């Protein structure tokens, strides 16, 4: 990559390019979806003092306009008797661009008389940009909390790609979560998840757990193997199995399926996402 420069955001002209930037940078992270409408909405954040910068490549192959390599939204607010500079949204292709945008944000905050600056950034960039020696410290008085609202939707999405693991159970698995039952079985090259009604004893195994345990697994707080040993997950064979060993192997396979219910670890959350 050759050089880049930082300039003010140019409204609708830059919007598509910023959207492309998000698409390429956030593809490996769990993140709240950002379409051009949402990005435009973010740029209209209500604040008396606000500025938006873009880092633009000066590479000739992209013409005179250049490719957008970074995007930052900074607002100045007065709270609790002092002025806070808050980086609402930050996205960039690498830490060099991030570092440059943050430097620009610090200059802007200093110019506007901010007493404190707060930034949320990519999880893997933190040590390279926010150095303790430069006065940065990690601090957040808030946290996000999550819970599974619909086990049906979670099972459908997270088991979608587990066809190979599930096809060894021809009659499927019955998931009993709190008082609801879901029948997971394989169809023609796809995984089917349905709400189980009436006679549901035709599945190979039943897996019983609470919604709290399912939420813990989904958010990577609990390990399904340990939860099984703690009797928080109960796995029961509903059909007669040829041997104890076979039953044990099948239980291990089910625990492997449960492990795949965990969401990927990398989460990208900007301050603007916290509504």
């Amino acid at each position, binding site marked *: 990559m050759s050089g880049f420069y930082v300039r003010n955001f140019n409204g609708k002209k830059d919007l598509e390019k910023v959207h492309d930037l998000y698409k390429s940078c*956030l*593809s490996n992270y*769990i*993140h*709240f*979806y950002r*379409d051009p*409408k949402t990005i435009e*909405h973010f740029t*209209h*954040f*209500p604040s008396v003092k606000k500025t938006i910068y873009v880092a633009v490549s000066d590479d000739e192959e992209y013409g005179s306009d250049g490719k957008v390599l970074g995007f930052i939204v900074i607002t100045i607010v007065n*709270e*609790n*008797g*002092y002025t806070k500079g808050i980086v609402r949204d930050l996205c960039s292709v690498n830490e060099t661009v991030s570092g440059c945008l943050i430097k620009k944000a*610090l200059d802007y*905050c200093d110019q506007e008389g901010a*007493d*404190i*600056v*707060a*930034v949320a*950034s990519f*999880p893997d960039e*933190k040590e390279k940009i*926010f150095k303790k020696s*430069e*006065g*940065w*410290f*990690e*601090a*957040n*008085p*808030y*946290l*996000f*909390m*999550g*819970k*599974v*609202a*619909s086990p049906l*939707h979670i099972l459908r*999405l997270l088991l*979608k*790609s587990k066809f190979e693991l599930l096809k060894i159970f021809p009659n499927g698995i019955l998931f009993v979560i709190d008082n609801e039952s879901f029948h997971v079985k394989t169809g023609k090259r796809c995984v089917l998840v349905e709400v189980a009604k009436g006679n549901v004893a035709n599945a190979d195994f039943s897996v019983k757990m*609470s*919604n*709290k345990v399912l*939420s*813990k697994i*989904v*958010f990577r707080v609990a390990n399904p193997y340990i939860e099984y040993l703690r009797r928080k997950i109960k796995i029961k064979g509903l059909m007669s199995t040829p041997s104890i060993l076979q039953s044990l192997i099948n239980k291990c396979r089910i625990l492997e399926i449960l492990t795949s219910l965990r*969401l*990927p670890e*990398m*989460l990208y959350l900007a301050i603007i996402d916290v*509504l």
Partner: protein
Amino acid sequence: MTRIRVEVWCTMQKRIPKEFSLRSYRRGEEQKIVDFLNLCYGTWGDLDKWRWKNVQYPTFEKDYTTIAEMNKEIVGYGALFLRNLHVPSLGTLHTVTLGDAAVHPKLRRRGLYTSLREVRLSIANSKGAALILVHNEKESIVHKMNKKRGYIEIHYPVYIKVLNPRSVLKAELRDIIKKRKELRDFMEGMNIVVELKRKHTKEKPINGIQITMDEKSLPLLAKIRTTRKTRGILLLFALISGRLKIRFRPTGLLVRKLIKGSLKFVRFLCA
């Protein structure tokens, strides 16, 4: 979909106390909502902020705001935000974030908050939300309640840099004093000087109370690094190790207040 929503409102109406009624937001009452939120939160924000968060949000629908009414006055409010979460290599999860829940200070502990939460959860279900998210202050009552309700904590890093330590220190101390009645009473009518420790300066005589602090210890006061209990312990350590100094000149008023305070403490021990 409309029919489902009407059913949600009707079912919820049966569960809440009779004097209250639940409904969604109506055009024209934005300012009333903002005034109500400012009454409940202290400082919540202005009309522009509410519009940006709700009406102008690309996925907004009228039913995403729930209002509790009593005698045609707003006594409860709650909002929800429907957003899609992109999960790499898997696809999209519909999520609902619950936010801005508020109940009139005089009408708390009557089950109104629970009703507001339940109606929003029912709407979330009717919208096919797979995950419910909430954003809470650490160690707050709502945070503790949500933990009990089975919500899982998701930490995200925020980095802070203090550009002007003096004003942050002053504002945070002012905030601490404002929030605690005992401190407010104690400090009334006294001259308090807040200073940041500087090297090679001779200590000048003071008139009143002087609080001197090491710049490195500033995050302790900025109420952003730790929970309240831990912060208390850290402040005590800072006091012992000399990073935080409190000097005072024993004026008549201060002595009187100290005697009063110690008598209260003795009375508390004897009770």
